[in-house]
């Protein structure tokens, strides 16, 4: 026995059972509730998207390793996690090429090109989602259930309508595949119990986000309002599964708190004041850029170098980190403040610019002004479709009050648009007398087919609206309209005519609800 040389190595000589793949498996298991719920609710389509995304992610990494002559890293399971996360953040109605392109982008450009596992500086799934959002905006933001497109809960919320919280909790509402708040919550807690994530990032993110919504959401500390914002729009998935991605979040406890706070702040800022349909994804990938800096400043002092409290938790946020947070907060809140202050000014100018076209449809008015209540109702829509079920994608852009020289109200002008034109968006101004009688329409944006849809701008169609007074107008496609609520379609351009009618009817519905 003595002539044999034994193995030598540095201590420790035993290792835990944990491996990279078992950690990744933990993440996949915690995403299963959300994935299964998505498949259960949205059906085969959701399953196909998940499968396409995961398989593409794994294949991309495999092929990259092969071409780059690197050791095969597929078995660590991180590509599966990326693919799954991406799929869960997609609408169930996206075409299958979307998850495939996304997975390739995320794995290849964001992960592999930066050195693979642990070296990427942005969450690959989120970077892919943002890439898709920018590249395929329409497909990414259309939510169709059983072929009927409808508004997302956030759009509903912005439109001032009551959102059924229970639906969002369960994930029944129109959202992404992994949109079930309760399933995400269960998965997140499961992951936390399995020590797959720490409490710091989700807590800091959600607390700061809620605070921001409460402070600037315009509804104060309204619990249902805040809960809806938390349950919808991906902040739960972001807080539990995306921001916590170990490769792109800080190492230390204090760093994670700072990071979570930045994510929450940016998500709140983008959600309330941003113009994009997504806030959380951008918030997280932007925050990812802070991570190397946070890692550099949030280094905890080891035992013996800080106050001698017994078993003191080593959470001490260094001054630089506080500074970083303060700067972000000041910038965020400052931006929000400046926006609120200048908002009226900007609108004043906008109003003057539009006055000419408004005058065309409501000639009796000497000047135009805003009514605060109506204005608030328009703002509450927040640029979201008014009622997708009834009118498709129509938007109330502006509503102004027309006043006579003596200041008495003579009527209203509605600036409305429909995104369902044959060739894009149709925007028009609709004039209405104080008693609800229409005075006419005027197109400010019309790009329909010449000789077909464009004929909507001819008097034959346009002039039909003046003098009508009805709750809703009806389009008569066969011609021969006679009733007070009937409009003849432009022959051969029913899509255009329908879009115009929908826009006008949206204005009428808005009038009935908020003005009358």
């Amino acid at each position, binding site marked *: 026995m003595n002539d*044999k040389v034994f193995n030598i*190595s540095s201590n420790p000589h035993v290792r*835990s059972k944990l491996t990279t793949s078992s950690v990744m498996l933990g993440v996949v298991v915690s995403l299963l509730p959300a994935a299964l719920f998505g498949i259960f609710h949205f059906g085969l389509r959701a399953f196909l998207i998940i499968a396409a995304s995961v398989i593409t992610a794994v294949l991309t990494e495999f092929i990259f390793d092969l071409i780059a002559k690197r050791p095969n890293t597929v078995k660590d399971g991180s590509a599966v996690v990326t693919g799954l996360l991406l799929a869960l953040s997609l609408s169930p109605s996206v075409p299958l090429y979307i998850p495939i392109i996304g997975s390739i982008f995320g794995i290849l450009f964001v992960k592999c090109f930066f050195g693979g596992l642990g070296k990427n500086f942005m969450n690959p799934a989120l970077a892919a989602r943002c890439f898709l959002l920018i590249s395929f905006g329409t497909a990414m933001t259309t939510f169709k259930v059983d072929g009927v497109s409808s508004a997302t809960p956030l759009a509903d919320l912005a439109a001032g309508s009551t959102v059924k919280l229970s639906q969002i909790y369960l994930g029944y509402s129109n959202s992404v595949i992994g949109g079930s708040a309760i399933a995400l919550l269960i998965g997140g807690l499961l992951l936390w119990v399995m020590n797959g994530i720490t409490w710091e990032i989700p807590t800091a993110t959600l607390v700061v986000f809620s605070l921001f919504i409460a402070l600037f959401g315009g509804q104060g500390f309204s619990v249902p309002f805040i809960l809806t914002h938390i349950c919808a729009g991906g902040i739960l998935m972001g807080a539990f599964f995306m921001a916590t991605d170990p490769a792109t979040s800080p190492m230390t406890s204090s760093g994670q708190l700072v990071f979570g706070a930045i994510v929450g702040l940016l998500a709140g800022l983008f959600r309330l004041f941003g113009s994009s349909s997504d806030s959380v994804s951008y918030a997280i990938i932007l925050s990812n850029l802070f991570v190397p800096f946070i890692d550099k400043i949030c280094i905890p002092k080891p035992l013996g170098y800080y106050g001698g409290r017994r078993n003191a938790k080593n959470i001490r946020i260094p001054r630089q980190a506080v500074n970083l947070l303060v700067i972000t907060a000041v910038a965020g809140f400052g931006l929000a403040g400046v926006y609120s202050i200048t908002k009226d000014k900007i609108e004043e100018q906008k109003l003057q610019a539009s006055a000419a076209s408004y005058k065309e449809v409501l000639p009796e008015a000497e000047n135009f002004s805003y009514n605060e209540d109506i204005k608030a109702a328009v703002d509450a829509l927040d640029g979201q479709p008014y009622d997708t079920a009834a009118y498709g994608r129509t938007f109330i852009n502006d509503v102004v009050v027309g006043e006579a020289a003596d200041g008495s109200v003579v009527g209203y002008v509605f600036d409305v648009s429909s995104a369902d034109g044959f060739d894009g968006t149709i925007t028009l101004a609709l004039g209405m007398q104080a008693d609800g009688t229409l005075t006419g329409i005027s197109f400010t944006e019309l790009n329909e087919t010449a000789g077909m849809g464009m004929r909507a701008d001819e008097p034959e169609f346009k002039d039909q609206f003046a003098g009508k007074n009805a709750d809703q107008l009806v389009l008569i496609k066969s011609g021969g309209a006679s009733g007070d609520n009937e409009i003849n379609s432009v022959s051969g351009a029913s899509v255009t005519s329908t879009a115009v009618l929908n826009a006008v009817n949206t204005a009428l519905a808005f009038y009935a609800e908020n003005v009358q």
Partner: protein
Amino acid sequence: MSLKTFRGGVHPEEKKELSVGKPIEVYLPKGDLVFPLNQHIGKPAKPVVAKGDKVLAGQLIAEADGFVSANIVSSCSGTVKAIEERKLGTGAKATCIVIENDGNFTLQEGIGVEKDPDSLSNDEILAAIKKAGIVGMGGAGFPTNVKLMPKNPDNIEYIIANGCECEPYITCDDELMKKHARQIVIAMKLLMQLFENAAGVIAIEDNKPTAIEAMRGVCAKEKGLSVMPVQTKYPEGGERNLISVVTGRNLKGGQLPAELGCLVCNVASLYAIYRACCLNEPLMDRLVTVSGEGVANPHNMLVKLGTSMAELVEAAGGAAPGKEIKKVLSGGPMMGIPLISLDTPLCKNNNAITVFAEDPVEQAQLQMTACFRCGRCQQACPIGLVPQLMANAAERGDLDYYEKKLYGLDCFQCGSCTFVCPAKRPLMQTFKQAKAAIMAAKRK
């Protein structure tokens, strides 16, 4: 109420059941006994015998050379065969006194004469400890008499008996506390006599209920002396962590416990102190755990110092049936030192021999992936370092950042980070290399 513990740490499989509770074998060596002169921290001892001399068991064969050094006594009777440089199992070379064992173990006169512990003066206690050549027997090997002479003895407020034994596999301290609780308490009382302002605390992990009971039974009537069960977690017995848990005082790296009014003494050292002071027995033998999956009959043995480890592994039945020994550790699996060969003597600070038939490190290397920054190393570090950033800094050669900003030299190499790492990164190895590089640069 949950027991006290520290932040961080890990829970390796304990594997103490392999050896715990089994009868303790008193093993008498057959071959030559080898005594390295540097088996303690400090200057190597100076031989006081020459080749060909006859020695008796308990006879001084090398004396402390300078302040931080320790005596070495023979543990058998026989003839000095050689004083020569030998290669030890760790691969290091050391001057050793080799004694040809005559097999009689004839004791030197006067050893074993009982003394009343209450009759000893402070100077007598210190002299007895120094004469016996006692060092920290938990692994450190720091001369105990030096530890017991701090600059300001009046400032010492805590004497902590370390009975945590947080390393997996090892059970010798457990067995010692079960069997010799009274003697350990007498030794604690002797130390408390040296330091009038100090309270005595015996810290034991709660996975040793019998030992806790035994120690409590003896302590019950003693004033100022208490047993403190602590949570079972590695490295609960690490000096900095133990002091923090027991006293709430936190040592910086490189700080001595005495600077914060603490003294930590392993229970095996305490038992040796009892024997030195009350039985006039120098440090000739110790309890050793021979355990691990690679050995047929894991158990504790009372072993003469200087015995070849090969003999001890044979005494434990040799390799487990059908298995081949792949790795041998002097100590436990977390901080133990791997041995190239078993042809090496048992030293004062060797508390265990752990024998593996499978090398977990070899398996871990197959599972190694890139670091994905999960942060488990940082959660596991018992002193609050950030191993992931340390490894990054060390790998890119930024040793200044490693040392100054990341407190890299505070790492006491407990191995928790490396144990827990799912990517199986060789963190500990990187840190050892970084430390060596920094130390080398400093010596220049």
